[in-house]
């Protein structure tokens, strides 16, 4: 069962993704900020991170760089209410970029495709 970490400062968003992805068979952990995420990642290995960009304690893009530096093998999917960051070169460090929507299917599909590809390898 793949381990997924949800990093989002919105409590209800964390709950939504947690409920939805748990039902899909993933093991979900959630945190609200960057420091908390880095601390947890030192204790536990995750297969994929769903990362919000506009966090309260740190920029999601800065956190992306740090995670990529410390955990180069983990999949990272940026998940933001803003589509404008798509044009930011730093987002290329991530494996996917999904704009938040009431339709969660695109996020689910992206996660699934990344993890299946990984398993096939």
């Amino acid at each position: 069962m793949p381990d997924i970490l949800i990093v989002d400062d919105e409590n209800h968003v964390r709950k939504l993704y947690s409920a939805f992805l748990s039902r899909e068979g993933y093991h979900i952990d959630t945190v609200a900020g960057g420091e908390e995420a880095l601390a947890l990642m030192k204790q536990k290995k995750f297969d994929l991170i769903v990362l919000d960009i506009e966090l309260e304690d740190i920029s999601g893009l800065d956190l992306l760089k740090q995670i990529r530096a410390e955990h180069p093998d983990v999949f990272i999917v940026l998940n933001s209410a803003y589509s404008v960051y798509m044009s930011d070169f730093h987002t290329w460090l991530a494996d996917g970029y999904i704009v938040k929507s009431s339709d969660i299917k695109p996020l689910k599909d992206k996660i699934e495709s990344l993890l299946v590809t990984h398993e096939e390898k």
Partner: protein
Amino acid sequence: MVEVADSLSMRIGETSLRSSFDNHPLGIFIVDNEGRIKYLNDEASRIIGLDSAKESIGHLIYDVDAVMNCGLDRAFQTVLGGRTYHLNEHRCSNCRGHYAVLNIFCSPYRNESNEISGILGILQDVTDSFKRKSELEEAIYELSVMGQVSEALSSAVAHDEILQMILTAVTASQGLGFNRAFLFLLDQKEGRLKGETAVGPGSPQEAGEIWNRLASQQKTLIELLNDYRERENNSNNTIGSLISGWEITLNDTCAFSRAVNEGIGINVFAGPTIDPGTEAILQRLKTQNLAVAPIISNGRRLGLIAADNQITGKVIRDADVKLLQTFANHTAVAIERSQLHDDLVEYAACLEEKNRQIAESQDQMIRIEKMSVIGELTSSIAHELRNPLTVIGGFANLMLTSEGHDGNSEYLNIILSEAKRAEQVLNQVLDFSRASRTKTRAIDFNQLTTQTYELFLARLKHNIKPPQLQIAGSNLEVWGNPDQLQHALFQYMNLTVEELTGECKVSFSTSKDNGLVRFAISFQGSDAVLAKVKKTLQQIFGSSTGTQKLSIIVAGETIKYHGGGFGLAGDSNKRPEIYIELPEYRGENNA
């Protein structure tokens, strides 16, 4: 002279006294009743032109032709009748053919019995003083003419008006008095004299009519010049046609070229020694004698005035040319002043237009700045809304796909669809706000429309016939935020598809009219279809609900903030048309 005559009458009998008048500055002579010369002093001899005063004694004065020329025969008849004779400034020529102006005084010479025994004559040569007086009078006249012309010209600024006044002054009898006058102006770039205007009668008959009329009016020169202004068009086509379209190069050796190149007035006479260029000028003007004066101001060659007496045939004197040259110098200042005035008027108009454009640009800049701020604001609001919508829609979705929701599935579907609709609105607002961040610049409107059209076609569903785009042939430029305008154009293009699919034939076009760049969406079809289209469009532009309406509002605001307008055109007899109009940008001069 009278006192001298009285003195002489009393003492003439005394020989010793007679000799005292030999060297008198006045010419004195005495003749007897028969006209035999009894006395003649040296001055009288000189004035009459005789070789010797003494040798003339005893000769009949009637035999001396010069005396007759001086009009003394009439004087003698008067005096022998007992009366005195006095004639001032009598112009004549003496025995040697010399021109002289004389004051003549004759009185009866009486003997001791008080009988008239002869004539005492006194001649005063006033030739030099008369000449100086004439010169002075002529100078005063010239000054008067110049003064009047100056006064009239000082209040004239219109170029054509000044030119006509100049030529009127040259030809008026109260002015320089020439019969005809021609004005040529120098084309500074081409270095050619070009026939500009002419004044004067076209024929002797016309001359007679005009001059008689002017003479009867008895107007001063300044009245005549001011009268000219009140007449809208007094150009004489007959004489004007003589120089119309005539161009003379300054490289030529003709009198016109020499006058302008050397800055001198020339009195031109027809004759065998004349150069071919000048001969051609005289032939074209149908004259034998022409006064030519260059118009030069501060060393800058402006043109040339030519004048003649073709009707009267009066010979032009060098003094006339000199006066014309003085006049031309005067007119040079008036012409230059007129040109400066024209430049100033043009500059003022240009400045006014610039100020208007600056004010307009500032206004537009403020509007665009406001738009940018609004864009930032809507962006942050939209993002704040996206998270709750994600949660609402997400949980509804989650519940719908979970077990045990059968009784609420309808409501959950409603929540989900409304959340999606709200997200569409957010996407449109975000598109707009993202566009707001782009800086303003000059935009090729045709190119922008074409790019938007291509984007529109790429998103068009396959079952919809694409509208045609007709781009204006001329270059269309607008100033503003290209992303915002593209967003607005896209919304309008999209409107036609979303609302009017399959209804009728749609076409897009760009054009320019009266300083406005225009994008139009027009519709073709049967009357019934067009009526339906119009109704739909009226609902869109008048309705306040629906997401499509929001996009049109945002697009419309974008257009307005760019100083433009939009709307639905076409009355009951016309096909409906949606249009967007933006101010045309005319490069750096616009800003």
